[in-house]
Each structure stands twice: as structure tokens, then as C-alpha cells.
């Protein structure tokens, strides 16, 4: 990436950190600085607004449920392109902010190959080469980039559809929908992965931190890069520490009342 973009991102992160704070406690790592978190939620809010107002117009079956949220059909039609534009702008900043960690690598191809093992939770720990973002996250990111471009082009055509040629509008109509469905699919998975599927993830977008255990479990290469420690060893050490403690407690209990704990 050109250095001016990097300089801009650096400055934005610094400025955001001056206004906001991120408290990193013992056993935690900083994952997302203030700038990233704010951007993420601006993108998320404008995306949801675009999604709801768009789906109101998407299908006759949703029209009457979703248009009242925005003050009727005409208002929905008026707001949707502005929501979309706001989304595009915020995502552009997020795009620049994340471009470096989202670069596609050989390890991501390997990650995608074992996606089945990932979804079935076959291995408790992610492979050692999974960095700040895993292959799935990168696929989602680039899918948003693709959809974002499609949305922007077809969106402008549909926005001013009374002046563009008829066939161009008709084609845009389909492409805009396809982009929306692609985004929706990714969105469902994204919310699930960010909350229920991987506990400890959601707070990284709120507080900005994750536990070290979370880091060596899900993103070992990133853990190694920021701590300098080997993720596998840290994991083993933590396991020993846990069982030592268990044993100590059991012994203590035995001493206390001479009974055997099952």
C-alpha cells in the first residue's frame, strides 16, 4: 500500500486513541484499537439500515413489514441510497485500515482447504499459521469489497433510473440483489462467528481486547507475533498450570476433611 494511506491510517489510529481508551488487563492482548472499533460499528449500523430499507423494496412480501420502520414506502426509497452511500464511505476507511492484515496469503488457502474440520470443531486449536485474520474472515472481507463495488455502480444506476437506459437498469436490478444476497449470507455467518460460535470474540469489538487463551486458540501466528512466545507452548503451560491447581485444590480438600473427592 502506498505510504500516504499508511500514514493516514496511522494518524487516524493515534487520534482515535487519544479520544478513546482501551484497557488491556493482565492475560489480555490488544486486538482492535479505538479507530477500528468505531469504524466497524459505523459500517455495521449503516449496513443494517441499508439491509432493512433495501429488503423492504426487495420483495413484496417484506414491503409492508419493513417500510413502516422508515416512515413509509416513499421515505424508505428516499433513505436507502443515502444509507448505502454512508456504508460505502465508512467501509472505504475500514478497507484502507485493514488492507494489510487482509492480504491473501498461502496459509489462507490451506485454511480454506480444511474448512470442514473448522466447522465441525475437529481440532481444538487452530493451525499454527493462522494470523491476525483467518482465511474465512479474509473471504468475507473481500466479498464485501466486491459487493461494495457492485452496490456502488448498480446503486447509482438504480438511484437515477429515470435517466439511464432501460436494459441497464434491469440488469442492475439483478446484480444489486445478488450483491445483497452475498452480503446477507456473509453477514449471518459473521454475526454467528463473532458471538455464539466463538465466545470471547465479541468483546474484541467492544473493549478492544481478547484473552491470551483466545489468541493462541484462534490466531496462533498473531499470538506469536505480538508476544514472541510459542502459542503451543503457552497452551501446554496453561494446561499444566490448570491441572496443577486442580490437584492442589484436591489435596487441600483431602487434608481438610480426610475424604476423597471423586
Amino acid at each position, binding site marked *: 500500500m502506498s505510504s500516504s494511506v499508511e500514514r493516514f491510517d496511522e494518524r487516524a489510529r493515534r487520534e482515535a486513541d487519544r479520544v478513546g481508551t482501551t484497557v488491556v488487563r493482565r492475560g489480555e492482548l490488544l486486538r482492535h484499537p479505538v479507530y477500528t472499533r468505531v469504524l466497524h460499528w459505523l459500517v455495521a449500523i449503516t449496513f443494517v439500515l441499508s439491509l432493512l430499507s433495501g429488503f423492504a423494496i426487495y*420483495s413484496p*412480501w417484506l414491503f409492508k413489514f419493513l417500510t413502516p420502520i422508515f416512515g413509509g*414506502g416513499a421515505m424508505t426509497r428516499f433513505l436507502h441510497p443515502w444509507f448505502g452511500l454512508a456504508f460505502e464511505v465508512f467501509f472505504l476507511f475500514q478497507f484502507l485500515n485493514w488492507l494489510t492484515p487482509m492480504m491473501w496469503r498461502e496459509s489462507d488457502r490451506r485454511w480454506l482447504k480444511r474448512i470442514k474440520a473448522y466447522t465441525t470443531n475437529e481440532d481444538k486449536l487452530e493451525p499454527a499459521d493462522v494470523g491476525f485474520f483467518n482465511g474465512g474472515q479474509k473471504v468475507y472481507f473481500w466479498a464485501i469489497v466486491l459487493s461494495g463495488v457492485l452496490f456502488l455502480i448498480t446503486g447509482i444506476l438504480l438511484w437515477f*433510473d*429515470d435517466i439511464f437506459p432501460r436494459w441497464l437498469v434491469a440488469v442492475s*436490478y439483478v446484480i444489486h440483489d445478488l450483491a445483497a444476497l452475498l452480503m446477507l449470507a456473509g453477514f*449471518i455467518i459473521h454475526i*454467528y462467528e463473532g458471538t455464539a460460535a466463538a465466545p470471547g470474540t465479541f468483546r474484541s469489538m467492544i473493549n478492544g481486547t481478547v484473552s491470551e487463551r*483466545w489468541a493462541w486458540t484462534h490466531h496462533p501466528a498473531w499470538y506469536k507475533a505480538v508476544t514472541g512466545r510459542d502459542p503451543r507452548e503457552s497452551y501446554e503451560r496453561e494446561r499444566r498450570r490448570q491441572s496443577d491447581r486442580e490437584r492442589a485444590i484436591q489435596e487441600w480438600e483431602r487434608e481438610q476433611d480426610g475424604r476423597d473427592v471423586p
Partner: protein
Amino acid sequence: MKMSNPQVFQIQEISAHPGPVPGLGTQRAVQVCKYIDVTTCIGCKACEVACVEWNDHPFRETTFDDTYQTMPSTDWNYWNLIKFAEDERDGNLMWLMRKDQCMHCEDPGCLRACPADGAIIKYENGIVDFNQNNCIGCGYCISGCPFDIPKFNQKTKKVYKCTLCSDRVGQGLEPACIKACPTGCLHFGTKHDMVQIAGLRAKQLQEHSGFANAGVYDPQTIGGTHVIYVLHDINNPERYGLPKDPVIPPSYTYWKWLAKPAGLLMAGLGVLAVFFHRVAVGPRLPQPEQPAPVESQPDPIEAKRKEQP
């Protein structure tokens, strides 16, 4: 426009309306039709004036572009336009004049494309009417229409077009443009009658006026129209600015009514899928898992019982 006479105006189709059309099938309305004989049009524009008058449209500026046409195309407050085309016949100039307005398609592309419930209504008598109260101003109807008819008003953000004078027809009157025509080239009646008369006229042109290709324009690709023309040359309707085989873009037919609901269904299934993933597979916890408090640790007796059927 609201109709007063339910016998003439039983609604047949409603844009973007999920569910059945109220009252459909309780009565059958007669199919109305406007028949325009372009061969006897003299380009006097009486119909243009009548349309502006009846619909209370203000006088407006026109655009002169070196033709006899009032303006390049119909507009949101100018629904009726005589289109002038200079053509050739046997090396001589032939002037083609065609009254352009909504065709009131049997399969209306505007209605198919419209996402707003009740913004476009098709009556059983064949009239396709816009209800601006329900219009959201998206402009999809413009790209759905094969005849470039619906026009956008930048101020009101709504779309307007010829109503086939549904307010007059509802009172048993003919459309205003029909009434104004001095040569009798405009006719109004039932679809059946108009097709019949137009057919006779086309035959007359073939046999007595040397127009071997004269014929009736009632395009079947959209199920016919409720405005039909007799043209000198039915094989080349493009000479009059009419599409030979008008079609509705598949975006508003197959995509909208088949693929879109399918996409929605997939989204619903996706939500169910992640829910059941959580139920069946469970979360990926940071490793090693922290020992749970004693009361929520797996019960060794119950764990054994699980192995039995």
C-alpha cells in the same frame, strides 16, 4: 384515480401485492380498447390538447427540435404525444404520425417491476392505472415498460402516465382524446369490437390502397394491448417508433417472482443453519477450557447414562 363504477372497474392485478386480489372473480368486466388508425391521422394534435385539458395539466414549455413534434417524448404532465417520423415510400416522402401514449398492456411491465403494494393497478377491463398515493418513486416501472411511457416528476418524486381516462370511462364516457379527434381515426369500445374493426380497416388498406403489408399492431409477446394500431406496414413497426416484439425484462418476471423468493428462503435457511450448528456442534472455546464451577461440571453418572440407548 379512484373508480366509482365497480362493474367497469373490478381490480384484476395489484403491483407488489402479496396475496389475492380482493373481489377477483366475483364479476367479469368488459374489456375496453382504444383503436388508433394511423393512416387517417392528420397530425392536428387535437388529442394532445384534449388530454392536457381533461387532466388539468398546466400549459408548459415545449422543446422544439426541428420537427413538427410538440416535444421529444411524452412527459409526466404530457401523456399524449403525436410522434412524427419522416419515411420513404416509392422514392417519395411518407409522413408517419402516431399517437403515443400508454398502451395498457395485457401483461404490464410497469406493474411487474413495481415494488410498492398498490402503486399500479390493472382493472379487469384492461386499464392499467397508477395510484400516486402508493408510489414510492423508485422508477422501476420506467425500466419495466417496453414503450417508455411512465415519466418521473422530480418535484413530487412520483411517476405519471395516461390513465386511459379511467375517470371518464368509469362514468360511461369515451376518453377525452377520442372525443377530440376530428378525423375519426381514434375509436373506443370493447377489445373484441376494436380488433374486428381494425382488422377490416387493415384489409381495406391492403386491397384498395396498395398497402400490402397493412396490419393490426396488438403485440402478443405481452398478451396484446388495450390500445391497438392499424399500421401501413405491420412488418416494420419500428418505423413508427414501436417495438416489434415488446418484452418485459426478465429481471421483473423470472428474477423477481422466482429467484428473489428463493434467495429469501435461502437466507432463512442460513439463519436456521447457524442456529442448529450452535445446538449440535457447539462453540469453539479458548483452550484449554477453564474448569467450570463444580455445579456445572458434567455429572459422571449422567455421562455414563448417555452411552446407553
